[in-house]
């Protein structure tokens, strides 16, 4: 072949390659399914009954979960390195602090009772007033709350960056963003999503283990349904998926001196109708997460049941009712890492 033709052929080849590259349509690549659609597809046949079993612990990136766990227990997230997430969400105390209100840095008292971190991922919003739409939003809250950790990312990040373990982990898990507020809370939230307390006796009962509940407890379950408790405390979490006014059938706050926290969702929406409206808390592990209500006004389960009967159901429950319902509520305590919460 004539060698002079080669450059011309090469040029033509290059031109063809360029054209192919430019004109090759991207339509062949399959469109990724959107998360919502995927969830819809994955949605199991939804139970119509009021109470539903807890879903299993989701399988998430173990590294990210480990990083989140480390952060969750890291006191450097607080101003004076005294308080970690786990300080107020103590796993030995049912994921809460069992205090009326939490104690922050310098012994400051928070405004409201701390809810448990267990199964918090299943709440439709976070905080009593639902001001955080997600765990991520929630996690950033206490860090900045002057009554709680009293810090900010600008203070926290240098402290965490001095830790080679964090540096490597963030570098590996978030190669693009690196260590920053968003990634910290993402890791923490990922960890929190694994904090599901499965295998409670009630769940076993729902799954067909008839002997999992005693007669009294089964009686309590029935009354829980019949008396309308399950109107609000329904779903897998027995709550955590709606708001309700505290004092539907009677003015709970009458004769009290209500503080800001008592206004509930009003603090978020400013709507009159949202005064004293709170997120209905889930009753999972309720037996180990006292005291109860946002203001920790009920110290025992029975007391809480009675108050609920009066102000929410508009009925005075008998002693037997309270006993059986409380007995039922105690079957909601699940296991964490194979051990029943205490």
């Amino acid at each position, binding site marked *: 072949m004539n060698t*002079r033709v080669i*450059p*011309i052929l090469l*040029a*033509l080849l*290059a*031109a063809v390659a*360029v*054209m192919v590259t*430019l*004109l090759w*349509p*991207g*339509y062949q*690549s399959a*469109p*990724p*399914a*959107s998360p*919502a*659609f995927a*969830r*819809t597809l994955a*949605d199991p046949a*939804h*139970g*119509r*009954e*009021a*109470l*539903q079993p807890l879903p299993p612990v989701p399988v998430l990136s173990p590294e990210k979960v480990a990083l989140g766990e480390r952060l969750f227990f890291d006191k450097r997230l607080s101003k004076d390195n005294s308080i970690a997430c786990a300080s107020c969400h103590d796993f030995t105390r049912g994921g809460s602090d069992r205090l009326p209100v939490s104690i922050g840095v310098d012994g400051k008292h928070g405004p409201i009772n701390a809810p448990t971190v267990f199964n918090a991922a299943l709440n*439709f919003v976070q905080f009593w007033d639902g001001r955080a739409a997600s765990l991520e939003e929630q996690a950033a809250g206490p860090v900045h709350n002057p009554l709680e950790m009293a810090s900010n990312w600008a203070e926290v990040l240098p402290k965490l960056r001095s830790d080679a373990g964090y540096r490597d982990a963030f570098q590996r898990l978030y190669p693009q963003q690196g260590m920053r507020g968003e990634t910290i809370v993402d890791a923490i939230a990922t960890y929190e999503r694994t904090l599901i307390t499965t295998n409670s006796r009630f769940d076993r009962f729902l799954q067909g283990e008839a002997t999992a509940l005693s007669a009294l407890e089964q009686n309590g379950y029935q009354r829980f349904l*019949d*008396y*309308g408790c*399950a*109107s*609000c405390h*329904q*779903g*897998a979490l027995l709550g955590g*998926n*709606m*708001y*309700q*006014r505290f004092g*539907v*059938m009677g003015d709970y706050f009458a004769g009290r001196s209500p503080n800001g926290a008592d206004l509930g969702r009003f603090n978020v929406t400013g709507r009159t*109708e949202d005064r004293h*409206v709170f997120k209905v808390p889930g009753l999972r592990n309720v037996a180990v997460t006292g005291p109860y209500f946002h203001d920790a006004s009920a110290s025992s389960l029975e007391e809480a049941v009675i108050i609920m009967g009066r102000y*929410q*159901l*508009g*009925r005075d429950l008998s002693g037997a009712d309270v006993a059986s319902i409380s007995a039922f509520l105690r079957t909601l305590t699940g296991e964490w890492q194979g051990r029943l919460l205490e």
Partner: protein
Amino acid sequence: MNDPTSQNISYRWLFAIGAGVVLFFVALAALYQRAEMVSPEQHFAYTQSLRDLREIDTRIESELLANRLELSRNYDALTRHTLDATGLGTQILATPTFLADSDRETVQSAARALQVSLADKGDLVDRFKRHDAVLRNSLAYFPVEAADFLDHENGFSGAGRLAVDRYVRAVLAFARAPSDAGHDTVTRAQATLDKPGLTSVQRLRLNNLRQHGDVIVAHLSDLDQLIEDIFTLNTSQQIEALNRQYATGHVRALATADRYRRLLYALVILLTIYLAWTFARLDRTRRSLEAAHREVSSRYTAQLAAEKQLKLHATAFRSAHDGITLTDAAGNILDVNPAFSRITGYERSEVIGRNPRVLKSGRHDHEFYAAMWKNINESGSWRGEIWNRNKYGEIYPELLSISAVRDESTGQLTNYVAVFADIGRLKAQEKQLTQMAYFDALTELPNRTLLADRLVQGIAQSRRSETLMAICYLDLDGFKPINDTWGHDFGDKVLIEIASRLKEALRGGDTVARLGGDEFVLLLLGLGSEDECIAAVERLLLEIAKPLGCLPEPSAVSASIGVTLFPLDDDDPDTLMRHADQAMYQAKQSGKNGYHLFDAEQDRSVRTRFDRVARIRQALENHELLLYYQPKVNMREGRVIGAEALIRWNHPERGILPPIEFLPLIEDDDLIKLIGDWVIETALIQLEVWRAMGLELQVSVNVAGRQLQAPEFVEKLKVALFLHPTVAHQLELEVLETAALEDVVKTSRVIDECRALGVHFSLDDFGTGYSSLTYLKRLPAETIKIDQSFVREILSDHNNLVIVQGVIGLANAFQRHIIAEGVETAEHGRLLMQLNCDEAQGYGIAKPMPSEQLANWVKHWQPDPSWQGARDLYWEDFDYPIMIAEVEHRNWVAQLVYAINEGLPPPQRHLADPQHCRFGLWYYGRSRSRHTAQPAYAAIERPHRRVHEVAQRMDEHWRDGHLDAARALIPELLTARDQTLDALRALQLAVAVRRTDDR
């Protein structure tokens, strides 16, 4: 590119091109981005979001209804769907970037509206959940509590009870089918409930019941209102609208992208075409560059070659042996080479710009030059011999080529180139050769060859002119005594004088030739009668009889002339000659100094050819034939080595006849074989006789070619040898070289066979045939006899000397024995010895003699003293120039003497200059470095100078017209010559190598 401005311009250009390329690529990238803007991923994600949203929205509403209708008792799904919808509502705000701005605006506003609706819907759903939960609780509790109240509160009055019952029914009816009428009924029934007389517990329970009833009534309508509100939001329609608007925008964006893609495609095609064009142009440029490079390199090569050639030409021009003249078109000299100066004597600077006609000799007439120029102008060149004159006035011949040089393109004559060689020497040699071939060296008369030619011409001329031609065979009487008395030199002089007299006596067309010795032949043409011939012959006799001037003493010779007249004697040339010879013999017989006219008539009748052969046969039978013996000697050893047997016819009338008289007649006859046999037999007998006398010699006999080639020759020889066993080994055979060459194969075989018998062979007359190496190699004869014609002349003719020298060298090379014939003087012998030829025979040693004389001769023979002196001396090849110089000197003097004697101008130039004669050239040139150390060498100079002084004086006398004075100097000249030769001989002895151990 050293010009700064051009450099700036080129930089500016580079910058412009670079910027152009960058811009082009930016444009290309932008186009690509626009064409690819409609990202399918984005599109699918967005449409998927819309599809999901529609699906979820539908589910929200169905969940809503399911909960309202108590088909579902938990809000997990509703809550999740609402959260999803809210999330998607935010998500759809991020409209794909590929939409056109107007489309994006539309889509985004629709999406914003939808988001607001979705947020509202979320709110409404939240409120729905709150109301639904409360309502559900009351709806569950109200009938149970009412029944319990009615069943268990027994103290309750009938009217009160009825009112409660009515109220309960109204509430439940409303709960089943809410309506304004139902609402009124409930309100009315409620009003009747306030009856007095109830216990506090009953009142409390009733209030509780009424509270729940109120909740049912209030929340039920609120709930339905909420559901209606939710449905009124009509999010599904909004979603549809958004979907439609988005689809429109997407299609439009696709169309836009497609336009960009087409544009890009077009650009790429353009770029490709441009690239292809650029490559094609580059290739063309490359090819033209290549072609240019090739041409430049070929031109360069050609130029190099041309330069080389020019140098070569210049060298050739400078170093050529031929003179070269370069002129312009007008003939003016532009340049000449060194050879020009050497030949013409003119320096380059002397002739530049001059016309070559300065060289004209005046020997050629105007017509010659005109013809020459005509030739040059017509054919472009001329070549020929021309006589020119050198700077010193000497005229010389040259071989001249003139070429016209014309301009290749215009054809205009630009130059002439003349190349010439001095052919003076060539001319001289040519003349000498002609002289040698056709003229007798001594007398310068035509020789036998030319005579034969003239004879043929004369015959033809006589026939044409119908006149007579006399062929006169002339033999001098009394010449031999002159020779014997005065020596050969004087003999030669006599011959020369006689020759010149003969020449003068003849008329223009006549010829006088010398056959050899003292025999001359004259051809007289145009004779009218026999008387006229006789008159001429008598006149010749008178001329010859005049006293000789060349001898020291007054003396005279006479002549005998045999004449035959053609065409009265109408025969072939050979026969005519023989007739004349016979007539001359007759004249001699009749008493010399007379003539005899051949009688053709008588001869024809009596002496036919047959008769003559018969007469010879008779001679054999009558024992008229006899053998003479000529001794052969070894000069160096002074020893007789043998003899050659030579046949003679003792003719009763003509005396002893040499073989030439009769053998040629029978060469082709078988008689020659009989005679040959007789010779061998006679020789063998003679050997036996001598042997008996105590004389032991080798005897060689001549064998004719015909005899040798006879089939029975060897057998006969064997018989003869067998009959004479004692002397068989003393016999040698001689065969003529020419005879041997007739059939080389056969001759060589015979020679081989004879050698087997112990008989040796000699090649006789060697040098007269084609003495080629090849034949010599193939003829196994032991001995080579150098022909006497060469040997005889070695003293006077250096050419013959060289020939003899060559033959001797040849014989040595082939390891053959060599013997020289024709050694006429002791000088000959000495020279031959110096040439390493030691064996010789000839008159200078002994003439052929009757057998009875030989024994006596052998007994008394003494070698020449000069030979004895050189007995132990040997000369090498490189000393031969000394011998040649001797010959040349002798010759030089002889020529001068001859010219002076004849009154002719001295033949040589540079008479006064001892350095320019051939001897001088040898002495001062070639030999100087070789022999200068020898005292004998220096001794030569003085006598040689003397020779020239005498010659110069003779020349001066001659120029002054004092011929006698010049002649008087001859003896002095000869003395000086002999002294020179003696000195030379001394040198020869001095350079010789003395060897005694040998032989």
